[in-house]
């Protein structure tokens, strides 16, 4: 009888033989390429904003032709590199927004690829919390165009999560910086604006998420400081379909303004519509997460005529950028040339700014070395002339830029009688 070997046994033997025969091979990377990755929610509802960010990043690299020559500060040796930019997605279509799992996968991918020298991201502060420690251990520079949660860089003295922000920096060094101002500034300026609008009683809602909750808690505490009353504060379920009963309750309290700490993705539009639907005419205010065209598109123009929607934004909108000096005007011209239209979302300037920061850090470091680049970004970017003005990174990686704008959704009628809603710059917010 012939011996019949079992297939599994053959498979096992094959795997082992191939494995041992081939021996060990480590991937070392490509010495002529510097890779830059970004990790942003590319599928799901934040897509329009991240498109703008990615366009901004690409524009920054495009301007230098995706090539850079680095001069080693010690040896003065010049090495040309090609810049490869990878646009990673930290969201899944199924979830509709970033998932922690996906963000971790992206961070690990960047960490393990020896050619990756900078990581642009994240969009959501919640995502940054998981990728920061991973990239920190890898000594990889991380530049965020959109994270505003303060705890990523600033300790909270009266919170049980006392390990923040240390837990995001397990190796002890700072590798994370961001080009947007943090929520504490934004919420204080929001509170000031609310006071200036003459509102005595406000109602606060939040979307039950890291960013929204943080900022609305801050607004609540600043409310006391600036002497107006908070009638109530509750969280919503951002997957909910309608809020008319909740708005009926709030209507009964007769607030002068409703503050919503959240984003367009966490139902700012629906809340505003339901507010008007139950017959309220008081204004609503939201943070920069609501400052996007999608918000103005989320309701019919009539709704914005019945009540006002305000949004604060860390930095100036596109049309005000030109007035700031810096490279704002240059950026707008370049963007229009490249993409054939004006940058719609203000985030595009932050994307561009991140690209500039990475380029500057590479130049300052002068070599393809993660640690040198990280150090360069955090110590050499001072009085930097960028698209959003002239600013510096402090030692925690926060921008010193403190310009913020107050905006409202305004309805305009064109000559055909069609009405459109869009954000309009109202005033500059300052402490």
């Amino acid at each position, binding site marked *: 009888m012939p011996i019949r*070997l*079992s297939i599994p046994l053959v498979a*096992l033997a094959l795997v082992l033989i191939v494995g041992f025969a081939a021996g060990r*091979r480590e991937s070392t990377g490509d010495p002529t390429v510097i890779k830059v990755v970004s990790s942003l929610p*590319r599928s799901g509802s934040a897509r329009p904003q991240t498109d703008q960010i990615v366009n901004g990043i690409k524009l920054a690299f495009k301007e230098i032709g995706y090539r850079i020559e680095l001069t080693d500060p010690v040896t003065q040796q010049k090495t040309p590199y090609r810049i490869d930019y990878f646009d990673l*997605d930290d969201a899944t279509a199924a979830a509709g927004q970033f998932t922690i*799992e996906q963000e971790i996968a992206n961070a690990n*991918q960047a960490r393990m690829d020896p050619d990756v020298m900078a990581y642009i991201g994240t969009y959501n502060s919640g995502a940054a919390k998981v990728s920061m*420690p991973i990239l920190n251990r890898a000594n990889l520079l991380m530049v965020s165009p959109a994270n505003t949660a303060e705890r990523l860089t600033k300790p909270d003295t009266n919170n049980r999560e*006392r390990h923040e922000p240390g837990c995001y920096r397990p190796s002890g060094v700072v590798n994370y910086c961001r080009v947007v101002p943090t929520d504490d500034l934004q919420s204080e300026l929001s509170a000031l604006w609310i006071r200036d609008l003459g509102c005595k009683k406000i109602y606060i809602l939040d979307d039950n998420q890291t960013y929204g909750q943080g900022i609305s808690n801050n607004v609540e505490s600043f409310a006391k400081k600036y002497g107006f009353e908070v009638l109530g504060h509750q969280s919503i379920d951002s997957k909910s379909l309608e809020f008319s009963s909740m708005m009926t309750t709030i209507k009964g309290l007769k607030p002068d303004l409703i503050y919503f700490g959240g984003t367009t993705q966490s139902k700012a539009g629906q809340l505003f519509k339901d507010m008007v639907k139950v017959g309220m005419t008081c204004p609503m205010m939201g943070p920069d997460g609501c400052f996007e065209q999608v918000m103005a598109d989320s309701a019919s123009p009539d709704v914005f005529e019945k009540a006002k929607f305000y949004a604060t934004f860390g930095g100036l909108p596109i049309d005000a950028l030109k007035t700031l000096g810096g490279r704002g005007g240059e950026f707008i011209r370049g963007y229009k040339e490249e993409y054939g239209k004006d940058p719609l979302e203000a985030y595009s300037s932050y994307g561009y700014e991140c690209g500039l920061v990475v380029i500057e850090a590479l130049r300052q470091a002068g070599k393809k070395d993660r640690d040198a680049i990280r150090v360069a970004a955090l110590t050499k970017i001072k009085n930097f002339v960028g698209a959003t003005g002239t600013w510096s990174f402090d030692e925690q990686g926060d921008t010193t830029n403190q310009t913020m704008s107050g905006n409202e959704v305004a309805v305009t009628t064109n000559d055909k009688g069609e009405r459109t809603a869009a954000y309009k710059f109202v005033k500059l917010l300052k402490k």
Partner: protein
Amino acid sequence: MADAVKKPFRLGWEPALFLMLIAFPFLPIFESLFFTTTQRSLGDQMPTVFIFAILALGLNVVVGYTGILHLGIAAFFAIGAYTAGILTTAAYSFELPFYVALIVGPILAALLGLLLGAPTLRLRGDYLALVTLGFGEVTKSALTNLQSITAGTQGLGPVPPPALPGLDLDWASDYRPFYFLTLGILIAVVLLLRNIESSRLGRAWVALREDELAANCMGLNTAKLKLAAFALGSGLAGLAGVLYATRLTSTSEPNAYDFNRSIFMICCLILGGLGNRLGVLLGVFILVGFDNILCPIIDAQIQQAFPASGGKIYLQFTGWRLFVFGLALILMMRFRPEGIIPSCRMKHELHPNELVPVTVPGDRA
């Protein structure tokens, strides 16, 4: 089968697969080949596969062994993850080692399974499916809203890596410690299930699956049997949860434990082969691979080939994910409902044309 006597040189697929998996980290050629072609680390993905395999095996105990359609397995997965979060993170004063969570997590999840199962397992199939679905939603809601306990959508973190006395392993950047930890636990789970399957309890489950009434008449306590399966499945899901949170170094957010996760796991079972351990592993490998490896690779390729394609969701491969999943499910059900690697039993059940049916088709008296 006829040749019941085992020939000494024969090796089953299951041990062969696990031997290959054990050998994998010692043969870096595969890892580096994979990395150079895909920019993704296979070894880094494997612990995820192992963890989901444990979860899928837990779900398989309920769906595959007893025939209850369980649509809320993610809730028990979450219980495990959050138990790990509460017991080990610095946010609480416990700060216990990983191994305590590894024991407490499954026990808590199993208890919760009992708590949910005891009053509801007498419900008819579809109603029971909805109860499990509802429980999943309630759990997710509770995790989101009980912020003082779960930190809401931020999730609890960072979960410290498992510490082994006397061994200083690099859990963060080397995939191998986690690889062996999760693979070891997976093998233990597979051995446990293997033993249970051939035990009295396992045979009773089969009887229950095939015909509840008959099982009842044979003197089997069907309520207790179902409850046991429910508890075991929930416990395994809890075990997977503990590992998941430890692997991610965070409990992740409550949305990671939503209905989609439960359905994803069901898809793994269906694709691989319901009731078959090897099939379940294959199903998990294919779907996790699709999501975590294939989608990003193809997207990167598309992006490089067509830089102008940004903005159009249908030009992204990830945009088609649901479509691919959906089509795969439909085609599987139509042409191979027993899965890629079917268990003999399911094959018989799902191909009624090849076997004598119990009743006339369509009869529902």
